[in-house]
Protein backbone atom coordinates (compact mmCIF):
# COMPACT_ATOMS: atom_id res chain seq x y z
CA UNK A 1 0.00 0.00 0.00
CA UNK A 2 2.83 2.36 0.92
CA UNK A 3 4.59 1.56 -2.33
CA UNK A 4 1.43 2.35 -4.27
CA UNK A 5 0.98 5.67 -2.49
CA UNK A 6 4.57 6.61 -3.17
CA UNK A 7 4.14 5.65 -6.81
CA UNK A 8 1.04 7.82 -7.09
CA UNK A 9 2.83 10.74 -5.43
CA UNK A 10 5.80 10.40 -7.82
CA UNK A 11 3.40 10.27 -10.77
CA UNK A 12 1.75 13.46 -9.53
CA UNK A 13 5.12 15.15 -9.36
CA UNK A 14 6.01 13.98 -12.88
CA UNK A 15 2.72 15.38 -14.17
CA UNK A 16 3.45 18.65 -12.40
CA UNK A 17 6.73 18.88 -14.34
CA UNK A 18 5.71 17.53 -17.74
CA UNK A 19 2.35 19.34 -17.95
CA UNK A 20 3.72 22.89 -17.68
CA UNK A 21 6.65 21.83 -19.86
CA UNK A 22 4.33 20.83 -22.70
CA UNK A 23 2.43 24.08 -22.34
CA UNK A 24 5.79 25.89 -22.32
CA UNK A 25 6.75 24.14 -25.57
CA UNK A 26 3.46 25.21 -27.18
CA UNK A 27 3.95 28.82 -26.19
CA UNK A 28 7.65 28.73 -27.07
CA UNK A 29 6.65 28.12 -30.69
CA UNK A 30 4.32 31.12 -30.42
CA UNK A 31 7.05 33.23 -28.82
CA UNK A 32 9.45 32.18 -31.55
CA UNK A 33 7.12 33.30 -34.34
CA UNK A 34 6.31 36.54 -32.57
CA UNK A 35 9.86 37.46 -31.54
CA UNK A 36 11.43 36.59 -34.88
CA UNK A 37 8.54 38.46 -36.47
CA UNK A 38 9.32 41.63 -34.55
CA UNK A 39 13.04 41.21 -35.25
CA UNK A 40 12.21 41.16 -38.95
CA UNK A 41 9.78 44.09 -38.60
CA UNK A 42 6.59 42.12 -39.12
CA UNK A 43 3.82 41.33 -36.68
CA UNK A 44 3.69 37.54 -36.64
CA UNK A 45 0.57 35.47 -35.94
CA UNK A 46 -2.23 37.67 -34.56
CA UNK A 47 -5.48 36.18 -35.90
CA UNK A 48 -6.41 33.23 -33.64
CA UNK A 49 -7.75 34.46 -30.31
CA UNK A 50 -6.88 37.79 -28.70
CA UNK A 51 -3.58 39.01 -30.20
CA UNK A 52 -2.92 35.52 -31.54
CA UNK A 53 -2.69 33.88 -28.12
CA UNK A 54 -4.60 30.77 -29.21
CA UNK A 55 -2.39 30.12 -32.24
CA UNK A 56 -0.38 27.25 -30.66
CA UNK A 57 -3.61 25.54 -29.57
CA UNK A 58 -4.91 25.77 -33.13
CA UNK A 59 -1.62 24.39 -34.46
CA UNK A 60 -1.73 21.47 -32.04
CA UNK A 61 -5.32 20.68 -33.00
CA UNK A 62 -4.44 20.80 -36.68
CA UNK A 63 -1.57 18.36 -36.21
CA UNK A 64 -3.79 16.04 -34.16
CA UNK A 65 -6.44 15.89 -36.88
CA UNK A 66 -4.02 15.19 -39.72
CA UNK A 67 -3.47 11.75 -41.12
CA UNK A 68 -0.35 9.88 -40.04
CA UNK A 69 1.22 8.65 -43.26
CA UNK A 70 3.56 5.68 -43.11
CA UNK A 71 5.55 5.35 -46.33
CA UNK A 72 5.50 2.03 -48.20
CA UNK A 73 8.72 0.03 -47.81
CA UNK A 74 9.46 1.81 -44.56
CA UNK A 75 10.04 -0.12 -41.38
CA UNK A 76 6.70 0.40 -39.66
CA UNK A 77 7.72 -0.34 -36.09
CA UNK A 78 10.89 1.74 -36.13
CA UNK A 79 9.17 4.52 -38.05
CA UNK A 80 6.57 4.91 -35.31
CA UNK A 81 8.92 4.41 -32.37
CA UNK A 82 11.51 6.96 -33.58
CA UNK A 83 9.60 10.08 -32.42
CA UNK A 84 9.08 8.43 -29.04
CA UNK A 85 12.81 7.73 -28.72
CA UNK A 86 13.41 11.33 -29.59
CA UNK A 87 11.15 12.87 -26.93
CA UNK A 88 11.68 10.39 -24.08
CA UNK A 89 15.24 11.50 -23.17
CA UNK A 90 14.24 15.16 -23.48
CA UNK A 91 11.56 14.61 -20.82
CA UNK A 92 13.41 12.09 -18.64
CA UNK A 93 16.29 14.51 -18.07
CA UNK A 94 13.93 16.78 -16.11
CA UNK A 95 13.94 14.28 -13.26
CA UNK A 96 17.17 15.69 -11.84
CA UNK A 97 16.64 19.42 -12.49
CA UNK A 98 16.45 21.30 -9.15
CA UNK A 99 13.65 23.90 -9.12
CA UNK A 100 14.63 24.97 -5.61
CA UNK A 101 16.92 23.49 -2.95
CA UNK A 102 14.32 20.90 -2.00
CA UNK A 103 12.17 20.74 -5.11
CA UNK A 104 13.76 17.97 -7.19
CA UNK A 105 12.02 14.88 -8.48
CA UNK A 106 15.10 12.69 -7.99
CA UNK A 107 17.98 14.22 -6.06
CA UNK A 108 20.56 11.67 -7.21
CA UNK A 109 24.30 11.89 -6.69
CA UNK A 110 25.26 11.25 -10.30
CA UNK A 111 22.83 13.81 -11.73
CA UNK A 112 25.29 15.44 -14.09
CA UNK A 113 26.34 12.08 -15.55
CA UNK A 114 22.70 11.10 -15.91
CA UNK A 115 22.00 14.22 -17.95
CA UNK A 116 25.05 13.63 -20.12
CA UNK A 117 24.00 10.03 -20.73
CA UNK A 118 20.43 10.98 -21.62
CA UNK A 119 21.45 13.76 -23.95
CA UNK A 120 23.64 11.33 -25.84
CA UNK A 121 20.74 8.88 -26.21
CA UNK A 122 18.54 11.49 -27.92
CA UNK A 123 20.37 10.98 -31.20
CA UNK A 124 18.77 7.56 -31.68
CA UNK A 125 15.39 9.06 -32.49
CA UNK A 126 16.97 11.00 -35.35
CA UNK A 127 19.06 8.13 -36.71
CA UNK A 128 16.23 5.61 -36.56
CA UNK A 129 13.77 8.06 -38.12
CA UNK A 130 16.14 8.71 -41.00
CA UNK A 131 16.79 5.05 -41.61
CA UNK A 132 13.27 3.69 -41.12
CA UNK A 133 11.69 6.22 -43.49
CA UNK A 134 13.53 4.62 -46.43
CA UNK A 135 14.08 7.96 -48.12
CA UNK A 136 17.41 9.38 -49.20
CA UNK A 137 16.74 12.87 -47.91
CA UNK A 138 15.75 11.57 -44.50
CA UNK A 139 18.81 9.35 -44.45
CA UNK A 140 21.17 12.19 -45.37
CA UNK A 141 19.64 14.34 -42.65
CA UNK A 142 20.01 11.58 -40.09
CA UNK A 143 23.67 11.02 -41.00
CA UNK A 144 24.45 14.72 -40.75
CA UNK A 145 22.67 15.03 -37.46
CA UNK A 146 24.35 11.97 -35.95
CA UNK A 147 27.83 13.17 -36.90
CA UNK A 148 27.07 16.62 -35.56
CA UNK A 149 25.63 15.46 -32.24
CA UNK A 150 28.49 13.05 -31.59
CA UNK A 151 31.07 15.79 -32.26
CA UNK A 152 29.47 18.42 -30.06
CA UNK A 153 28.77 15.89 -27.33
CA UNK A 154 32.50 15.79 -26.61
CA UNK A 155 32.90 19.54 -26.18
CA UNK A 156 29.77 19.55 -24.03
CA UNK A 157 31.12 16.73 -21.88
CA UNK A 158 34.39 18.59 -21.31
CA UNK A 159 32.48 21.73 -20.36
CA UNK A 160 30.55 19.67 -17.81
CA UNK A 161 33.83 18.31 -16.43
CA UNK A 162 34.76 21.93 -15.72
CA UNK A 163 31.47 22.42 -13.85
CA UNK A 164 32.13 19.20 -11.95
CA UNK A 165 35.56 20.42 -10.83
CA UNK A 166 34.23 23.83 -9.77
CA UNK A 167 31.16 22.41 -8.03
CA UNK A 168 32.98 19.50 -6.46
CA UNK A 169 29.99 17.25 -7.02
CA UNK A 170 27.89 15.53 -9.67
CA UNK A 171 24.72 16.35 -7.78
CA UNK A 172 22.92 19.29 -9.38
CA UNK A 173 21.66 20.72 -6.08
CA UNK A 174 25.22 20.70 -4.74
CA UNK A 175 26.43 22.39 -7.92
CA UNK A 176 23.90 25.19 -7.48
CA UNK A 177 24.71 25.53 -3.78
CA UNK A 178 28.41 25.81 -4.64
CA UNK A 179 27.53 28.98 -6.57
CA UNK A 180 25.85 30.62 -3.59
CA UNK A 181 27.21 34.01 -2.55
CA UNK A 182 26.58 36.63 -5.18
CA UNK A 183 26.39 37.19 -8.90
CA UNK A 184 30.16 36.86 -9.29
CA UNK A 185 30.18 33.55 -7.41
CA UNK A 186 28.17 31.96 -10.19
CA UNK A 187 30.24 29.74 -12.47
CA UNK A 188 29.76 31.88 -15.58
CA UNK A 189 32.70 34.04 -14.52
CA UNK A 190 35.43 31.52 -13.65
CA UNK A 191 34.24 29.17 -16.39
CA UNK A 192 33.44 31.80 -19.02
CA UNK A 193 34.88 29.90 -22.04
CA UNK A 194 33.18 26.68 -20.92
CA UNK A 195 29.92 28.55 -20.42
CA UNK A 196 29.98 29.93 -23.96
CA UNK A 197 31.05 26.59 -25.43
CA UNK A 198 28.40 24.68 -23.48
CA UNK A 199 25.62 26.88 -24.72
CA UNK A 200 26.78 26.91 -28.35
CA UNK A 201 27.24 23.13 -28.26
CA UNK A 202 23.74 22.95 -26.83
CA UNK A 203 22.43 24.89 -29.81
CA UNK A 204 24.28 22.48 -32.10
CA UNK A 205 22.95 19.46 -30.19
CA UNK A 206 19.37 20.54 -30.61
CA UNK A 207 19.96 21.01 -34.36
CA UNK A 208 18.80 24.61 -34.18
CA UNK A 209 19.85 27.44 -36.47
CA UNK A 210 22.65 28.19 -37.33
CA UNK A 211 23.53 24.49 -36.91
CA UNK A 212 20.40 23.11 -38.56
CA UNK A 213 22.01 21.36 -41.54
CA UNK A 214 20.23 18.20 -40.38
CA UNK A 215 16.99 19.82 -41.51
CA UNK A 216 18.46 22.05 -44.19
CA UNK A 217 15.27 22.95 -46.07
CA UNK A 218 17.22 24.33 -49.00
CA UNK A 219 19.22 21.13 -49.62
CA UNK A 220 17.50 18.09 -48.15
CA UNK A 221 13.90 19.30 -47.82
CA UNK A 222 13.41 18.76 -44.08
CA UNK A 223 16.04 16.21 -43.21
CA UNK A 224 15.24 13.27 -41.01
CA UNK A 225 11.55 14.03 -40.53
CA UNK A 226 10.67 14.69 -44.14
CA UNK A 227 8.38 11.62 -44.34
CA UNK A 228 6.58 12.30 -41.09
CA UNK A 229 3.15 13.89 -40.86
CA UNK A 230 0.45 14.63 -38.33
CA UNK A 231 1.07 13.50 -34.76
CA UNK A 232 4.36 11.71 -35.43
CA UNK A 233 5.77 14.93 -36.85
CA UNK A 234 4.33 16.89 -33.93
CA UNK A 235 6.26 14.70 -31.49
CA UNK A 236 9.53 15.46 -33.27
CA UNK A 237 8.61 19.10 -33.06
CA UNK A 238 7.84 18.79 -29.35
CA UNK A 239 11.13 17.00 -28.78
CA UNK A 240 13.11 19.75 -30.49
CA UNK A 241 11.53 22.48 -28.39
CA UNK A 242 11.65 20.44 -25.18
CA UNK A 243 15.35 19.96 -25.84
CA UNK A 244 15.79 23.69 -26.28
CA UNK A 245 14.15 24.33 -22.92
CA UNK A 246 16.26 21.60 -21.35
CA UNK A 247 19.54 23.04 -22.65
CA UNK A 248 18.50 26.50 -21.45
CA UNK A 249 17.60 25.28 -17.99
CA UNK A 250 20.82 23.27 -17.76
CA UNK A 251 22.92 26.27 -18.71
CA UNK A 252 21.06 28.31 -16.08
CA UNK A 253 21.59 25.65 -13.41
CA UNK A 254 25.24 25.06 -14.14
CA UNK A 255 26.52 28.51 -14.98
CA UNK A 256 24.00 31.08 -13.77
CA UNK A 257 23.28 29.77 -10.30
CA UNK A 258 20.01 27.96 -11.05
CA UNK A 259 17.40 28.95 -8.51
CA UNK A 260 19.66 31.44 -6.69
CA UNK A 261 18.62 35.08 -6.61
CA UNK A 262 20.79 37.45 -8.69
CA UNK A 263 20.52 40.04 -5.88
CA UNK A 264 22.25 37.86 -3.32
CA UNK A 265 25.06 39.67 -1.54
CA UNK A 266 23.82 43.13 -2.54
CA UNK A 267 22.91 45.00 0.70
CA UNK A 268 19.44 46.50 0.11
CA UNK A 269 18.17 44.60 -2.92
CA UNK A 270 18.80 41.22 -1.33
CA UNK A 271 16.25 41.80 1.39
CA UNK A 272 13.87 43.48 -1.02
CA UNK A 273 13.72 40.43 -3.31
CA UNK A 274 14.07 37.72 -0.64
CA UNK A 275 10.38 36.77 -0.94
CA UNK A 276 10.68 35.74 -4.59
CA UNK A 277 10.70 31.92 -4.83
CA UNK A 278 13.77 30.35 -6.45
CA UNK A 279 11.73 28.85 -9.22
CA UNK A 280 10.97 32.31 -10.59
CA UNK A 281 14.67 33.10 -10.92
CA UNK A 282 15.31 29.76 -12.62
CA UNK A 283 12.46 30.46 -15.01
CA UNK A 284 13.74 33.95 -15.77
CA UNK A 285 17.25 32.66 -16.49
CA UNK A 286 15.84 29.89 -18.68
CA UNK A 287 13.81 32.42 -20.66
CA UNK A 288 16.96 34.47 -21.22
CA UNK A 289 18.67 31.52 -22.92
CA UNK A 290 15.55 30.66 -24.86
CA UNK A 291 15.58 34.20 -26.18
CA UNK A 292 19.16 33.62 -27.33
CA UNK A 293 18.02 30.51 -29.21
CA UNK A 294 15.42 32.57 -31.09
CA UNK A 295 17.78 35.47 -31.57
CA UNK A 296 20.42 33.19 -33.15
CA UNK A 297 17.83 31.88 -35.55
CA UNK A 298 16.82 35.37 -36.62
CA UNK A 299 20.42 36.56 -36.97
CA UNK A 300 22.81 33.95 -38.32
CA UNK A 301 22.82 32.23 -41.69
CA UNK A 302 23.26 28.46 -41.67
CA UNK A 303 26.77 27.11 -41.20
CA UNK A 304 28.34 25.11 -43.98
CA UNK A 305 28.80 21.48 -42.97
CA UNK A 306 32.61 21.47 -42.89
CA UNK A 307 32.54 24.67 -40.83
CA UNK A 308 30.37 22.94 -38.22
CA UNK A 309 32.78 20.03 -37.96
CA UNK A 310 35.77 22.35 -37.79
CA UNK A 311 34.22 24.46 -35.05
CA UNK A 312 33.40 21.42 -32.95
CA UNK A 313 36.62 19.47 -33.28
CA UNK A 314 39.31 22.06 -33.91
CA UNK A 315 38.07 25.04 -31.91
CA UNK A 316 35.81 23.96 -29.06
CA UNK A 317 37.55 20.79 -27.89
CA UNK A 318 41.04 22.38 -27.64
CA UNK A 319 39.62 25.42 -25.82
CA UNK A 320 37.82 23.25 -23.28
CA UNK A 321 40.93 21.16 -22.64
CA UNK A 322 43.07 24.27 -22.15
CA UNK A 323 40.50 25.77 -19.80
CA UNK A 324 40.33 22.54 -17.79
CA UNK A 325 44.08 22.87 -17.23
CA UNK A 326 43.69 26.52 -16.19
CA UNK A 327 40.90 25.52 -13.83
CA UNK A 328 42.96 22.70 -12.39
CA UNK A 329 45.75 25.18 -11.64
CA UNK A 330 43.25 27.57 -10.06
CA UNK A 331 41.94 24.78 -7.81
CA UNK A 332 45.45 23.78 -6.74
CA UNK A 333 46.33 27.41 -6.00
CA UNK A 334 42.97 27.95 -4.29
CA UNK A 335 42.11 31.13 -6.16
CA UNK A 336 39.13 32.77 -4.47
CA UNK A 337 36.28 33.21 -4.23
CA UNK A 338 35.44 30.24 -6.45
CA UNK A 339 38.17 27.69 -5.78
CA UNK A 340 39.30 28.57 -2.26
CA UNK A 341 37.11 25.88 -0.67
CA UNK A 342 37.59 23.05 -3.15
CA UNK A 343 41.36 22.49 -2.89
CA UNK A 344 42.74 19.52 -0.99
Amino acid at each position, binding site marked *: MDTLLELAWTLTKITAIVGPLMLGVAYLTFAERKIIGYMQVRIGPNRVGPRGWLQPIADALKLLMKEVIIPTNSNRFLFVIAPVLSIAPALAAWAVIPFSDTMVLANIDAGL*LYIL*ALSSVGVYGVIIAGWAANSKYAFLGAMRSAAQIVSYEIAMGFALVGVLIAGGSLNLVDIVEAQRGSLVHWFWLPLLPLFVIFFISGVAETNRAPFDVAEGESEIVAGFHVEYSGMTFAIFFLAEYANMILISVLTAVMFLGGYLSPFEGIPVLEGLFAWVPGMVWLLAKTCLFLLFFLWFRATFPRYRYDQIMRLGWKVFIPITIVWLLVEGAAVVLGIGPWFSGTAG
Partner: protein
Amino acid sequence: MSFERIIFYAFAAILVYAAGRVVTARNPVHAALHLVLAFFTCAGLWLLLEAEFLAIVLVLVYVGAVMVLFLFVVMMLDINSAPLREGFIRYLPVGLAVAALMLFEMVAIVGVRYFGPEQVAIPARHPEGYSNTAELGRVLYTDYVYPFEIAAVILLVAIIAAIVLTMRRRPETKYQDPAKQVQARKADRLRVVKMSAEKKQ
Protein backbone atom coordinates in the same frame (compact mmCIF):
# COMPACT_ATOMS: atom_id res chain seq x y z
CA MET B 1 8.14 -11.67 -4.62
CA SER B 2 9.57 -8.27 -3.84
CA PHE B 3 9.35 -5.36 -6.28
CA GLU B 4 13.10 -5.42 -6.83
CA ARG B 5 13.03 -9.07 -7.81
CA ILE B 6 10.22 -8.45 -10.30
CA ILE B 7 12.31 -5.72 -11.89
CA PHE B 8 15.33 -7.98 -11.97
CA TYR B 9 13.52 -10.78 -13.76
CA ALA B 10 11.87 -8.37 -16.21
CA PHE B 11 15.21 -6.79 -17.11
CA ALA B 12 16.97 -10.15 -17.25
CA ALA B 13 14.31 -11.51 -19.63
CA ILE B 14 14.59 -8.47 -21.90
CA LEU B 15 18.38 -8.72 -21.80
CA VAL B 16 18.39 -12.38 -22.82
CA TYR B 17 15.85 -11.73 -25.57
CA ALA B 18 17.78 -8.73 -26.93
CA ALA B 19 21.11 -10.55 -26.81
CA GLY B 20 19.53 -13.47 -28.65
CA ARG B 21 18.14 -11.19 -31.34
CA VAL B 22 21.55 -9.59 -31.85
CA VAL B 23 22.82 -12.84 -33.34
CA THR B 24 19.58 -14.03 -34.97
CA ALA B 25 18.23 -10.84 -36.56
CA ARG B 26 18.40 -10.95 -40.36
CA ASN B 27 18.86 -7.23 -40.78
CA PRO B 28 22.18 -5.93 -39.41
CA VAL B 29 20.56 -2.64 -38.38
CA HIS B 30 18.02 -4.54 -36.28
CA ALA B 31 20.86 -6.52 -34.73
CA ALA B 32 22.67 -3.30 -33.79
CA LEU B 33 19.48 -1.82 -32.32
CA HIS B 34 18.95 -4.96 -30.24
CA LEU B 35 22.50 -4.59 -28.99
CA VAL B 36 21.55 -1.07 -27.86
CA LEU B 37 18.55 -2.53 -26.03
CA ALA B 38 20.82 -5.14 -24.44
CA PHE B 39 23.20 -2.42 -23.18
CA PHE B 40 20.30 -0.45 -21.78
CA THR B 41 18.79 -3.32 -19.85
CA CYS B 42 22.24 -4.31 -18.65
CA ALA B 43 22.65 -0.77 -17.28
CA GLY B 44 19.32 -1.25 -15.49
CA LEU B 45 20.59 -4.45 -13.88
CA TRP B 46 23.77 -2.70 -12.76
CA LEU B 47 21.65 -0.01 -11.14
CA LEU B 48 20.01 -2.75 -9.08
CA LEU B 49 23.50 -3.78 -7.95
CA GLU B 50 24.09 -0.21 -6.64
CA ALA B 51 26.71 0.40 -9.32
CA GLU B 52 25.12 3.57 -10.66
CA PHE B 53 28.34 5.06 -11.99
CA LEU B 54 29.09 2.03 -14.16
CA ALA B 55 25.47 1.86 -15.29
CA ILE B 56 25.36 5.47 -16.42
CA VAL B 57 28.77 5.28 -18.04
CA LEU B 58 27.68 2.16 -19.92
CA VAL B 59 24.79 4.15 -21.39
CA LEU B 60 26.96 7.20 -22.00
CA VAL B 61 29.86 5.44 -23.70
CA TYR B 62 28.41 2.36 -25.34
CA VAL B 63 24.88 3.50 -26.16
CA GLY B 64 25.66 7.17 -26.68
CA ALA B 65 28.90 6.96 -28.63
CA VAL B 66 30.04 3.48 -29.68
CA MET B 67 26.71 2.19 -30.92
CA VAL B 68 25.93 5.42 -32.77
CA LEU B 69 29.10 4.97 -34.81
CA PHE B 70 28.27 1.28 -35.21
CA LEU B 71 24.84 2.11 -36.58
CA PHE B 72 26.39 4.75 -38.79
CA VAL B 73 28.68 2.21 -40.43
CA VAL B 74 26.07 -0.54 -40.65
CA MET B 75 23.54 1.80 -42.26
CA MET B 76 26.06 3.18 -44.74
CA LEU B 77 27.41 -0.20 -45.81
CA ASP B 78 24.04 -1.73 -46.73
CA ILE B 79 25.28 -5.25 -46.02
CA ASN B 80 23.54 -8.05 -47.86
CA SER B 81 23.40 -10.83 -45.32
CA ALA B 82 22.32 -13.63 -47.71
CA PRO B 83 25.85 -14.66 -48.80
CA LEU B 84 26.96 -14.62 -45.19
CA ARG B 85 24.47 -17.35 -44.37
CA GLU B 86 25.48 -19.76 -47.11
CA GLY B 87 27.67 -22.06 -45.10
CA PHE B 88 25.41 -22.17 -42.05
CA ILE B 89 24.72 -25.92 -42.06
CA ARG B 90 28.28 -26.79 -42.97
CA TYR B 91 29.80 -24.85 -40.08
CA LEU B 92 27.04 -25.71 -37.60
CA PRO B 93 28.83 -28.72 -35.99
CA VAL B 94 32.04 -26.74 -35.44
CA GLY B 95 30.08 -23.82 -34.03
CA LEU B 96 28.13 -26.06 -31.68
CA ALA B 97 31.34 -27.68 -30.49
CA VAL B 98 32.92 -24.31 -29.76
CA ALA B 99 29.77 -23.11 -27.99
CA ALA B 100 29.63 -26.25 -25.85
CA LEU B 101 33.31 -25.90 -24.96
CA MET B 102 32.85 -22.27 -23.94
CA LEU B 103 29.80 -23.13 -21.86
CA PHE B 104 31.75 -25.88 -20.13
CA GLU B 105 34.66 -23.54 -19.41
CA MET B 106 32.42 -20.84 -18.02
CA VAL B 107 30.53 -23.26 -15.81
CA ALA B 108 33.85 -24.66 -14.59
CA ILE B 109 35.18 -21.23 -13.65
CA VAL B 110 32.19 -19.19 -12.48
CA GLY B 111 30.03 -22.05 -11.24
CA VAL B 112 28.22 -22.23 -7.93
CA ARG B 113 31.16 -24.24 -6.59
CA TYR B 114 33.38 -21.15 -6.48
CA PHE B 115 30.96 -18.24 -6.38
CA GLY B 116 27.98 -19.73 -4.54
CA PRO B 117 26.63 -18.20 -1.33
CA GLU B 118 28.80 -20.61 0.73
CA GLN B 119 32.04 -19.34 -0.83
CA VAL B 120 31.31 -15.64 -1.22
CA ALA B 121 29.38 -13.71 1.40
CA ILE B 122 26.33 -11.81 0.14
CA PRO B 123 27.42 -8.17 -0.03
CA ALA B 124 25.76 -5.96 2.53
CA ARG B 125 23.57 -3.04 1.45
CA HIS B 126 25.30 0.30 1.57
CA PRO B 127 24.01 2.98 3.94
CA GLU B 128 21.89 5.78 2.53
CA GLY B 129 24.60 8.42 2.11
CA TYR B 130 26.89 6.10 0.16
CA SER B 131 27.98 7.45 -3.21
CA ASN B 132 29.23 4.83 -5.60
CA THR B 133 30.68 7.51 -7.92
CA ALA B 134 32.73 9.25 -5.25
CA GLU B 135 33.95 5.93 -3.85
CA LEU B 136 35.04 4.71 -7.28
CA GLY B 137 36.84 7.98 -7.96
CA ARG B 138 38.67 7.81 -4.64
CA VAL B 139 39.85 4.24 -5.26
CA LEU B 140 40.87 4.92 -8.87
CA TYR B 141 42.96 7.96 -8.02
CA THR B 142 44.61 6.62 -4.85
CA ASP B 143 45.04 2.84 -4.67
CA TYR B 144 44.99 2.17 -8.40
CA VAL B 145 46.46 5.40 -9.71
CA TYR B 146 49.36 3.78 -11.60
CA PRO B 147 47.33 1.07 -13.38
CA PHE B 148 44.74 3.73 -14.18
CA GLU B 149 47.28 6.15 -15.67
CA ILE B 150 49.03 3.38 -17.58
CA ALA B 151 45.72 2.26 -19.07
CA ALA B 152 45.03 5.86 -20.08
CA VAL B 153 48.42 6.18 -21.79
CA ILE B 154 47.91 2.88 -23.63
CA LEU B 155 44.55 4.11 -24.89
CA LEU B 156 46.14 7.38 -26.01
CA VAL B 157 48.78 5.42 -27.92
CA ALA B 158 46.03 3.40 -29.57
CA ILE B 159 44.19 6.57 -30.60
CA ILE B 160 47.31 8.14 -32.08
CA ALA B 161 48.22 4.89 -33.83
CA ALA B 162 44.77 4.65 -35.40
CA ILE B 163 44.99 8.20 -36.67
CA VAL B 164 48.53 7.81 -38.01
CA LEU B 165 47.68 4.51 -39.76
CA THR B 166 44.69 5.95 -41.58
CA MET B 167 45.97 9.44 -42.33
CA ARG B 168 47.61 9.86 -45.70
CA ARG B 169 48.16 12.82 -47.96
CA ARG B 170 45.50 12.95 -50.61
CA PRO B 171 46.30 15.72 -53.07
CA GLU B 172 42.98 15.32 -54.87
CA THR B 173 40.85 16.30 -51.86
CA LYS B 174 39.54 19.84 -51.90
CA TYR B 175 40.25 21.62 -48.67
CA GLN B 176 39.04 24.99 -47.49
CA ASP B 177 41.38 27.13 -45.45
CA PRO B 178 39.09 29.15 -43.16
CA ALA B 179 41.83 31.68 -42.39
CA LYS B 180 42.10 32.51 -46.09
CA GLN B 181 38.34 32.54 -46.50
CA VAL B 182 37.93 35.03 -43.72
CA GLN B 183 40.56 37.31 -45.21
CA ALA B 184 38.89 37.49 -48.61
CA ARG B 185 37.79 41.05 -49.33
CA LYS B 186 35.29 42.47 -51.71
CA ALA B 187 38.03 43.96 -53.85
CA ASP B 188 39.57 40.50 -54.46
CA ARG B 189 36.43 38.97 -55.86
CA LEU B 190 34.30 41.70 -57.30
CA ARG B 191 34.93 43.96 -60.26
CA VAL B 192 32.46 46.73 -60.95
CA VAL B 193 32.27 47.54 -64.63
CA LYS B 194 30.90 50.89 -65.65
CA MET B 195 29.08 50.80 -68.94
CA SER B 196 26.37 52.70 -70.66
CA ALA B 197 22.88 51.22 -70.82
CA GLU B 198 22.18 48.87 -73.73
CA LYS B 199 19.15 49.01 -75.98
CA LYS B 200 17.11 45.85 -76.52
CA GLN B 201 17.70 44.60 -80.06
